[in-house]
């Protein structure tokens, strides 16, 4: 066994994952990065070949290898397309971990991983304090000056774009506004726990509040465990399994203390990752069983409503709407019909199907920061399709997509409102 194979296997669900691809090429048509370069190595099939070459010792961990693995959006569209059921996502994440261990990462990625993953995500108070600072900056005159200055635009163009891309920090964070336990006024139908999340908490507090509101309307008890952490998807998807595992364990500990039926997620990346805790912690003896229980309770808010409240009534809403499939909803969690079913049960609301709805918008975690130019090509494609629908509102079930689409709307001048589906549900849902 080569050293690299050994390292890969530490993070792969099992050994057979590596040998399952029959290189039929069915994934090529759905891969956004293959579409960009038309190079086989930028396709899922090519990347799997390279990972296998590294595992077998036919290839060293080269710069090109590292680049291709990080060039991948990890959107997992190929997993949906793969009839053979190859677990591509886990292979790429494992390879990223091997690349990180070998030190083959770009400086920018190293910095982000060091600062955000290791020093902020594990310490919610520090994270919130940083967000607070960002809030002051975002609402200060300095920002306006920087943005209007030609000199900064010339020398710090990239940083200014990133600044514009960052969603506004909420004035009050969701964590502070949501009490630990909200009892249902009637007999509670389900006991639901929620993860306030890291970015969701500080930048999308409104979506968290809407989620709580919807659960309350559905007569569910809402539990928000106090000592909870980021789900770990950002570090996990970028090959930092140490941090990811640590966060997973802390969340399992935090939620274990409460009695709940389902853990409701309103961010597809978090939901998908928490459903994978059982694979992530497969080798941690103390946590294997707990992780299994934890993962099996996780449900996306739309999955939950479509499954448990299929006949709930909505108010009429006369509007045109389109729906963007967040990758980690449609590809990782295979949630495709549920949101459409909900939208279609709202009277007078007209759903216009978006061309390439299940293509990545280019947000992909921290992808739009590290691969800004490529990300923008994908975003432009997405925004053009959105423009073609002539809809008034576009829905997206992930905070990353929401931020990216809002940025895209202003950058590519598309007149569209970007909303989380839960906000639409809150606005239209009848009280039971």
């Amino acid at each position, binding site marked *: 066994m080569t050293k690299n194979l050994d390292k890969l296997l530490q993070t792969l669900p099992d050994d*057979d994952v590596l*040998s*399952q691809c*029959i*290189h*039929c*090429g*069915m994934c*090529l*048509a759905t891969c956004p990065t293959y579409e960009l370069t*038309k*190079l*086989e*190595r930028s396709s899922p099939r*090519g990347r799997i*070949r*390279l990972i296998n*070459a590294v595992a077998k010792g*036919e*290839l060293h961990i*080269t710069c*090109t*290898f590292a680049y*291709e693995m990080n060039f991948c959006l990890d959107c997992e569209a190929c997993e949906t397309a*793969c*009839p*053979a*059921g190859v677990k591509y996502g886990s292979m790429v994440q494992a390879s990223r971990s091997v690349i990180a261990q070998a030190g083959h990462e770009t400086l920018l990625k190293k910095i982000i991983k060091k600062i955000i993953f290791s020093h902020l995500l594990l310490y919610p108070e520090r994270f919130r304090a940083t967000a607070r600072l960002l809030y002051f900056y975002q609402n200060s005159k300095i920002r306006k000056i920087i943005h209007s200055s030609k000199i900064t635009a010339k020398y710090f163009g990239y940083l200014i774009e990133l600044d514009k891309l960052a969603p506004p920090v909420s004035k009050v964070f969701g964590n502070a506004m949501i009490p630990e336990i909200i009892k249902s006024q009637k007999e509670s139908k389900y006991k639901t726990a929620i993860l306030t999340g890291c970015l969701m908490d500080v930048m999308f507090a409104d979506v968290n509040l809407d989620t709580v509101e919807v659960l309350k309307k559905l007569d569910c008890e809402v539990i928000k465990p106090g000592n909870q952490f980021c789900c770990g998807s950002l570090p996990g998807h970028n090959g930092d399994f140490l941090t990811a595992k640590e966060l997973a364990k802390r969340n399992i500990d935090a939620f274990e203390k409460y009695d709940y039926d389902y853990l409701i997620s309103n961010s597809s990346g978090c939901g998908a990752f928490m459903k994978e805790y059982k694979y992530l912690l497969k080798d941690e003896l103390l946590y294997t069983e707990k992780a299994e229980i934890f993962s099996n309770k996780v449900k996306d808010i739309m999955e939950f409503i479509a499954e448990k409240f299929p006949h709930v009534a909505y108010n009429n809403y006369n509007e045109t709407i389109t729906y963007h499939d967040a990758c980690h909803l449609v590809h990782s969690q295979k949630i495709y019909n549920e949101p459409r079913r909900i939208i279609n049960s709202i009277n007078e609301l007209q759903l216009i199907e978006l061309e390439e709805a299940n293509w990545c918008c280019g947000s992909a975690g921290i992808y739009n920061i590290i691969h800004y130019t490529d990300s923008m090509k994908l975003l432009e494609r997405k925004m053009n399709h959105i423009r073609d629908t002539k809809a008034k509102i576009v829905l997206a079930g992930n905070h990353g997509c929401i931020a990216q689409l809002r940025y895209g709307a202003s950058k590519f001048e598309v007149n569209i409102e970007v909303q989380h589906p839960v906000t639409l549900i809150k606005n239209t849902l009848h009280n039971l």
Partner: protein
Amino acid sequence: MNNSVKERIKSIVGKPNFTDSREDLLCYSYDGTALLHHLPEAVIFPENEEQVSLIMKLANEELFNVVPRGSGTGLSGGSIPVENSLVVVMTKWNKILEIDARNLTVTVQPGVITGKLQSEVEKTGLFYPPDPGSLNVCTIGGNVANNAGGLRGLKYGVTKNYVLGAEMILPDGELLKTGGKNMKDVAGYNLRDFIVGSEGTLGIITKIILKLIPIPAKSITILAYFDKLTDSAQAVSDIIAAHITPCMMEFLDNTTINCVEDYTNIGLPRSSEALLLIEVDGRGSIVEDDAETIKNILYKNNASSIKTASSVEEAVMLKTARRSAFSALARKRPTTILEDATVPRSELPVMIEKVTHAAHLFDVIFGNFGHAGDGNLHPTCLTDERDNKEIEKAHKAFDFIFNEAVKLGGTITGEHGTGLAKKQFLEKVAGVPGLEMMKKIKCAIDENNILNPGKIFTITPRCEGTLPFRREQIKKFQ
């Protein structure tokens, strides 16, 4: 291939269109074929005819091999590199040059994706029928080079029935133009049909003119399940004998049904022994009449359930599920060896039996599916390439299947091509004179044997090779 040759190649195509990095060599060392792969020496992405032509001339001068490649979804190893080879990737030639609505033709570059071509011509009310399983990925150039078939072959024929003209760069660097938009053209040898199915051994295709037909007005899709494999095969024969030509008549056995259901979750009955997916299309009431007759035949042949797709979406879903069959079979075992033995349609029930028999005889697992209406089966061996013994058994089973197919008057490959995977069996169907004629043609066109050598057949004198040391190894002269 030494560095000075590589430099010369680079100066022809330009630096950005050339790569010999280890990562790229690994990524162009395979196609969709199981078990076969080989590293090329370099890979290029030419931009125009002139570059391809210069590369051919250089190859003759420096004696390296040239292997053309599209999306690499082939199933006979046609685009897998050989020793000392340069892979020429044509995927960037992806422009539809003209849709001629008056002549009902479309002119394309070879790198256009087949599915994309279809959706573009359908926007103008026209139709390009050949639809190989990989249509969303494969290129039209590859389709022409392999004379690709597909689900609709039964009524609409295969790629060769639609190629009106083509341009290709010959191994000596000259540009061959043949055919055009004429519906009839008998000037000289029919070189156009000769290009179709040449598997990249006679030239690199650079432009194709295809025939289009009006899009069928309506279609009805029928799904039938059977408890007995032989009943389904008999139903197919009866439908053909009743003088009905559905546009597709697809067959899936129990193993395939289960794998497809694992992938798609569309509610296929897991206990059924066989499934037939039949579509009739056309104009007016004939479509309904045909559908009715087909249903009656299915009933007579003990179909346990017969359903009609209620919407276009449902029909598309069923066909998409069928197209995933080959890859879905990989859920069972990591290696799937897919073949496409084809027999005259009347012999289909016998051939299905033979495949089942081969699986028992050699103790291997087979998934069987295919274009039943064409007599074109896809017996797929589910195995593991890491297990040498099992692979040997699989090869023996295929040997048996091919022999049986030929005995029934069939052929070793219906639509995937001969390539590397089936060249050892070619003599069985083509016969010695046939094979010799093919070799003579190849030698005449490609003097130095630089273009995709070793595919379809190996050019060596008959006396060459290892010396036989047992009596049965001596090949009889026929």
